[in-house]
């Protein structure tokens, strides 16, 4: 068990505490969502992330404070710096309750988690609800629903931590609700699938995929050089050569391409380097080749003496994958689109030089 997912309450934010006027019975509300609660409300059952309307079930007369982005900015930035230093991987899911998860590989007993938890509570907040498991999806689920499923737990000053026993993990994986999987395809819902165990092959894939966090695995770097024979080769051949190598590397690493660099050497010995980094990994062969073409077309025209390609491979996110296909494998990874253009996007297409002119049918 190496992952801890948490949700904090009564976050140590001076402006909020000042606005609460010393009371511990308060709720910070943004829209229809509770963003933070004081100790008194937390102890009665109120939690950050709940609907505002749900507060009525917890009694009392909590003071309602309006959420402001500036309130939690300092705490979140400080928490991020601490996680970057302490955790092997981490992700902050939501500003509501500073929910997030982190990986501490050496922590496998409650006492080993003690030092981590002491750093979270009361340093950043005075209440915590956590989940511990061998995967962040399970840890998040244990954090949110561990009490309802009577998972083993231990208590500490200001909170409770639920643990998923490793001997029973396979059973809990099958019961994991699909809402914990990022952006599950709508087709799954239409088929009536609600849990990970309902989707064929999904559980095995999720268990072996490295979780994508803010501080992930170090990217894998690869480099291929190729001497070219003048008059015998063309860019198509170069593209095919590098493209195939890149695609097989991605399949082997179960990742996507994050950065590409192309080095070109002319016949007179001159060298040129073009490089680009993308915010999200792409693993689908068509998209990988498109990224390669993007760079190759920045190079001078043929002929060339040698070309080298350097690639950086990183993890692909669950939401980027197409799970349901003929081979039930996460084969595709690319940026999603919303499909039809709305009216405003069509209008932007008329004047914005960043947008290609598209004569699509607008949706009113």
């Amino acid at each position, binding site marked *: 068990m190496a992952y801890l997912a948490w949700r904090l309450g009564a976050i140590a934010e001076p402006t909020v505490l000042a606005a609460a006027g010393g009371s511990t019975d308060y709720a910070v509300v943004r829209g229809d969502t509770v963003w933070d609660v004081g100790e008194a409300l937390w102890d009665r059952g109120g939690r950050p992330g709940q609907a505002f309307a749900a507060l009525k079930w917890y009694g009392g007369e909590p003071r309602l404070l309006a959420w402001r982005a500036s309130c939690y900015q300092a705490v*979140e930035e400080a928490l991020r710096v601490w996680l970057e230093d302490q955790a092997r991987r981490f*992700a*902050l899911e939501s*500003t509501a309750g500073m929910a997030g998860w982190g990986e501490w590989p050496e922590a496998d007993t409650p006492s080993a988690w003690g030092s981590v938890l002491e750093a979270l509570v009361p340093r950043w907040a005075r209440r915590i609800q956590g989940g511990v498991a061998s995967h962040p999806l399970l840890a998040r689920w244990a954090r949110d629903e561990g009490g309802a499923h009577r998972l083993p737990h231990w208590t500490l000053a200001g909170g409770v931590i639920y643990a998923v026993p490793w001997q029973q993990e396979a059973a809990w994986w099958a019961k994991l609700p699909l809402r914990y999987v990022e952006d599950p395809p709508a087709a799954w819902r239409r088929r009536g699938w609600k849990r990970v165990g309902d989707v064929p092959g999904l559980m095995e894939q999720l268990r072996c995929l490295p979780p994508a966090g803010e501080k992930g695995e170090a990217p894998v770097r690869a480099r291929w050089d190729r001497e070219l024979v003048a008059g015998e080769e063309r860019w198509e051949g170069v593209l095919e050569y590098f493209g195939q190598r890149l695609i097989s590397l991605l399949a082997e690493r179960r990742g996507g391409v994050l950065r590409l660099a192309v080095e070109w050497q002319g016949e007179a010995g001159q060298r040129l380097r073009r490089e680009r980094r993308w915010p999200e990994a792409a693993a689908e062969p068509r998209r990988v080749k498109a990224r390669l073409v993007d760079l190759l077309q920045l190079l001078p025209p043929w002929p060339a003496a040698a070309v080298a390609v350097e690639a950086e491979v990183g993890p692909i996110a669950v939401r980027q994958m197409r799970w349901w296909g003929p081979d039930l494998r996460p084969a595709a990874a690319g940026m999603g689109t919303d499909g039809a253009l709305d009216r405003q996007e069509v209008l932007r297409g008329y004047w914005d030089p960043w947008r290609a002119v598209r004569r699509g049918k607008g949706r009113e």
Partner: protein
Amino acid sequence: MRAIEAVWPDRQGRPRGFRWRRRYVRVATVLESWREVRAWWRGEPELRCWRVEGEDGGIYELAQSADGWWMLKVYD
């Protein structure tokens, strides 16, 4: 157009960082900004739009209305 959970603006109201798809993106450069008068006859609010380059290398278009912040487009 999708809602953005949190945006941290600077004193001029320009986005300095935002949270998108469970990641914090720090803004490296504001490339452009403009205002859009939308279908006001249907009650759609005016948008103040920003095209920014994130430190992750992505280009994002953010919009601010009276309701909050929205993501218009992410360039690959």
